């Protein structure tokens, strides 16, 4: 039983790390700030979700598991809102500088 649980954990944690790696890669490689925000949210949401899911069988008791899910939900909420805040900051800065350059194009 414990072997199955461990295998489950490993698979999901590995998948989570893969998403984090993808997010990091996106953060580094994507050309515009707005799309980089998008990449960041991927890492935050999916990567963290997979890791939490994978760790659930390792939780010592139900309370601990519930807390893990709570951490994930909170991170979800916060990162979603943070993405909005930062995107708004980018828009505001671009607007304020009134640079001749048009706003960033919407595709990578």
């Amino acid at each position, binding site marked *: 039983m414990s072997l199955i649980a461990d295998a489950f954990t490993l698979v999901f944690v590995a998948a989570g790390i893969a998403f984090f790696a993808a997010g990091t890669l996106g953060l580094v490689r994507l050309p515009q700030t707005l799309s980089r925000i998008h990449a960041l949210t991927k890492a*935050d949401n999916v990567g963290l979700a997979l890791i939490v899911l994978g760790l659930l069988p390792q939780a010592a008791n139900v309370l601990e598991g519930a807390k893990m899910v709570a951490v994930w939900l909170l991170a979800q909420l916060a*990162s979603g809102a943070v993405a909005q805040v*930062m995107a708004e900051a980018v828009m505001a800065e671009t607007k304020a500088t009134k640079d001749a350059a048009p706003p960033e194009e919407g595709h990578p």
Partner: protein
Amino acid sequence: MADLLFAAATLLLLLAAAGLAALWRAGNDVDRMLAVQLLGAAGIAVLLLLTPATGDPALLDTALLLALLAALAACAYRAAFGPARQKAGTPPAVPRP
């Protein structure tokens, strides 16, 4: 099992550090904030991984706190550097190759 969890945590930390380093050299300040946000997300994941690895349930509380306060920095950044304070001549988020 604990060793594997530690290995995963190490990997996450390295990933976040790599992202941080890459954005630091080339990015503008919003990008740097994003890198710090990535570090925060990785930090949450690391703390979650360390909880079963070390067997200390109190680490979950630190993860909870990190998740809560990650948003504070972004909000403070926005409040401190609104467009009203923007210095003319600061380049906008330039598309990078």
